[in-house]
């Protein structure tokens, strides 16, 4: 599961109950957080130790950013899983559309020359 793929989940939360392939902006229309009594949804990213990326690890409901950070600590780092937290409102995440996956990502499939292994060099310099 790639990092990028995981973090997309955020934008997927508010998908309509029957999400046909829809553009990533769909949540604005279906978001029920405004006017609802439900606390807004936040995506949580944890840096597990210095030197590593923040990685998406889940989501939670919180009234505001300060509370979201506090809750993230309680929910996602009870066993020292992190040294740093990011939270971002789920409805602020823009994601690519899985319906466009082939069109979007397949063009890279035949560009093998972008990888170092494409080039066969003489043994004596092959560690290059």
């Amino acid at each position, binding site marked *: *599961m790639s990092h990028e*793929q*995981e973090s*997309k*989940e955020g934008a*997927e*939360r*508010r*998908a*309509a*109950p*029957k*999400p*046909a*392939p*829809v553009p990533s902006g769909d949540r604005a229309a279906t978001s*029920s957080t405004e006017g*609802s*009594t*439900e*606390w807004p*949804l936040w995506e949580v990213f944890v840096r597990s130790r210095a030197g590593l990326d923040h990685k998406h*690890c*889940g*989501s*939670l*409901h919180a*009234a*505001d950013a300060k*509370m979201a950070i506090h809750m993230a600590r*309680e*929910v996602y780092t*009870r*066993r020292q899983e992190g040294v740093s937290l990011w939270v971002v409102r789920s409805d602020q995440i823009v*994601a690519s*559309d*899985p319906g466009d996956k082939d069109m979007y990502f397949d063009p890279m499939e035949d560009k093998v020359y972008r990888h170092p292994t494409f080039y066969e060099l003489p043994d004596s310099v092959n560690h290059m």
Partner: protein
Amino acid sequence: MYTQAMDTQGRDEGAGDKPVRSVEEMQLQQRFDARIDDGGFIEAKDWMPDNYRKTLVRQISQHAHSEIVGMLPEGNWITRAPTLKRKAILLAKVQDEGGHGLYLYAAAETLGVSRDQLLDALHSGKAKYSSIFNYPTLTWADVGTIGWLVDGAAIMNQVPICRCSYAPYARAMIRVCREESFHQRQGFDSLLVMMRDGTPEQRAMVQDAVNRWWWPCLMMFGPPDDQSPNSAQGMRWGIKRVSNDTLRQKFVDATVEQAKVLGVTLPDPDLKWNAERGHWDFGAIDWAEFWRVVGGEGPVNRERLAERVQAWDDGAWVREAAMAHARKQRVNKEAA
């Protein structure tokens, strides 16, 4: 725990086979089936059959409800834990259960239901939670026994879901399973101390707790395979990976050995090693009791749900105040 969800809500009508389907929908279905067959994952925004979505919402939310309601029987003992060490352990465990409920609610929400809808279903009695939490925790030994047996059975159930085809659920389960092992071990440890160093009364208390929890734990795996009509579809979809009876047998086999170490007797005169099968045979389970408990007539169904509803209602002013505060902060910031 999860296996009950497929069995306690009746059968799905027609498994989504609407008579008329568009060509596009059939292509999507084929692609979905192929991905399941390849052992691939389904992500939240991918196309999925309506019944796959419905089944998952039901199962994941019931699983979440079980974690949250499961805080009650043990929470009851936090103030009465015999030592500071046991109190700290129990607090951590109950907090974990709350966390597990939150991971699972979040996974269910990716399917397009809101947290409030899920909680409404629990509070109105429309959604179920595991039958096991409708039994009372009468003594301190019940707390250790829940850790050893109830969490032990839950782990058996949950490990296969780490490979569930629905990726957000699988990811939540990986996190849950990683934490759950501590729950079972602390329970066994607590019982072991009483059995090894305790008074005759304390040892009798442990045996009594095991007597009361053993059969309800076996019921946690859900009805026998031949009475589990939704299981086949769950297996086809890669939501369920191992059958109820297989998991139950695995649990019995593992637990018999642990009971010996502990020095307690499992309350089943028919429990016997079967060399031919390579498994322990065990006696008949009282399925009438199981269905009674699922139907709301267990020893403490009403108390559990009432306590849950009251906690939610009592918290309403906190939720509202937090939102009002957030709004005010926003307005102040915009004004500044």
